[in-house]
């Protein structure tokens, strides 16, 4: 299955080889001004995301995980630092953010499917408008992807007719329709009933196996351990500890990480 997934996605257009740096984040900051003073949602984040990597971001609530992830495709405008994606400084005013976002898919906690469009139209809207794909081509590709998540029979249903787990699988393949070079996930299973978490994580595992670069904010420590190639622990807008899942989960050094793990594991 993962080999097939690779074939459909075919993101070989980028010259970056597996293991090379895809996204480089340097001293990233996001400060909010409030009456009580300044909130430092991000306070000097520096890290690289390499092609083929599955980066898992964990941390307590309010630590800045979402802000970090959403800064990567500029849904949040950072107030300091730089983000370089495929060699382009996307934080510079001259960068074409709409072009860059085509290469960075995003999956949200609440799916955010378009309720007025069928599943098929949800998936083909962006490829047709942005990649100028013909309707039959876009639909053929969407159908292939739907088969991978076993939802091809729901192609002409509306989002409201699907379960939460089905919606999130659609949200993932909708992002894949643009053949992105990286996928960003912000707590993709947090809004799901427990019995539906597995089906979404399975799709994400398949994606990881196919070599997709992923950055995942999650509370699913099992997934982080099994699928993650690297784990970042954040607190108060900073990276407190970072390492392989093994280093983070079996040998945590920082005491904040230790107490966080004691709570969630």
């Amino acid at each position, binding site marked *: 299955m993962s080999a097939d997934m690779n074939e459909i996605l075919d993101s070989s257009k980028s010259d970056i080889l597996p293991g090379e740096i895809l996204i480089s984040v340097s001293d990233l900051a996001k400060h909010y001004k409030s009456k009580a003073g300044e909130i430092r949602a991000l306070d000097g984040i520096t890290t690289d995301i390499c092609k083929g990597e599955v980066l898992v971001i964990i941390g307590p609530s309010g630590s800045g995980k979402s802000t970090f992830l959403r800064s990567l495709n500029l*849904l949040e405008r950072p107030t300091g630092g730089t983000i370089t994606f495929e060699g382009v400084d996307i934080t510079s005013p001259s960068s074409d953010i*709409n072009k860059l*976002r085509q290469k960075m898919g995003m999956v*949200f906690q609440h799916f955010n499917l378009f309720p007025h469009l069928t599943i098929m139209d949800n998936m083909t*809207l*962006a490829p047709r*408008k942005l990649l100028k794909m013909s309707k039959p081509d876009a639909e053929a590709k969407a159908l292939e992807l739907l088969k991978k998540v076993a939802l091809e029979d729901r192609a002409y249903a509306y989002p409201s007719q699907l379960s939460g787990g089905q919606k999130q699988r659609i949200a993932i393949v909708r992002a894949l329709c643009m053949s992105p070079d990286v996928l960003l996930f912000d707590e993709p299973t947090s809004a799901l009933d427990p019995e539906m978490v597995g089906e979404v994580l399975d799709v994400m595992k398949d994606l990881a196996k196919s070599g997709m670069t992923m950055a995942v904010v999650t509370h699913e420590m099992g997934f982080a351990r099994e699928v993650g190639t690297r784990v970042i622990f954040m607190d108060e807008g900073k990276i407190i500890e970072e390492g392989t899942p093994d280093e983070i989960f079996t040998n945590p050094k920082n005491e904040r990480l230790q107490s966080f793990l004691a709570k969630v594991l």
Partner: protein
Amino acid sequence: MIASLTAKPVCLLPKWLSDLQDDFYLNFIKEDRYLYLLRGLWMTLKITFFAVILGIALGVIAAIVRSTHDKNISEMRPGLGRVLLKISNALVKLYLTVIRGTPVVVQLMITYYIIFASSTNQMLVAVLAFGINSGAYVAEIIRSGIMSIDNGQFEAGRSLGLNYIQTMTYIIIPQAFKNVLPALANEFIVLIKETSISGYVGIMDLTRGGDVIRSRTFSPFLPLFAVALIYLIIVVFFSKLVSILERRLRNSER
């Protein structure tokens, strides 16, 4: 006996009924006077229809300018785009304030006697005046529709690479429109009644048609009640359609 019955059947009708019959004949049948009502109704419907279309077009534009401004201005970098947005927002605000702050009949007269003083196309003037007026109210309806859409929809569109305008066009506006369709239909119903002031600038609409009959026959009762009844039937009919529409929309969600 039988002969006298057939000769003068009218005598058997009560006096008030035969009076009414005479009145009916005088006001509607004689000299084809019913045509004033029929042609007037047609004019009222035409003016309302085109004014609604113009109103929706203006309203959508005004609503997009207002909500784009409110949503983005604080995050926009200085530059031409920001300046243009500020100017268009100020213009739209002025439009909304002036239109909502003055009586529509005054707007109609200004349009007719000042702005289009040289035009002989009365219907066009009325469509413009009522369309521009309606646009100010439609703008607020559409804006509330846009605001009611979850921001996640917007973010999902942008994260796929759609630009602001594409996200608005394909994702936000269609949903906003659907949410406010009943309110827009109500605006149409309000406008049907509002066009009854068209006579102020000499347009032969339904109300004016009835009034012309009254002035010819010196019998106000039937023509004016006929006019009122026609408005009532149209309004009740469209209100019924709106409630059917509302039910349909509610059922289609989930």
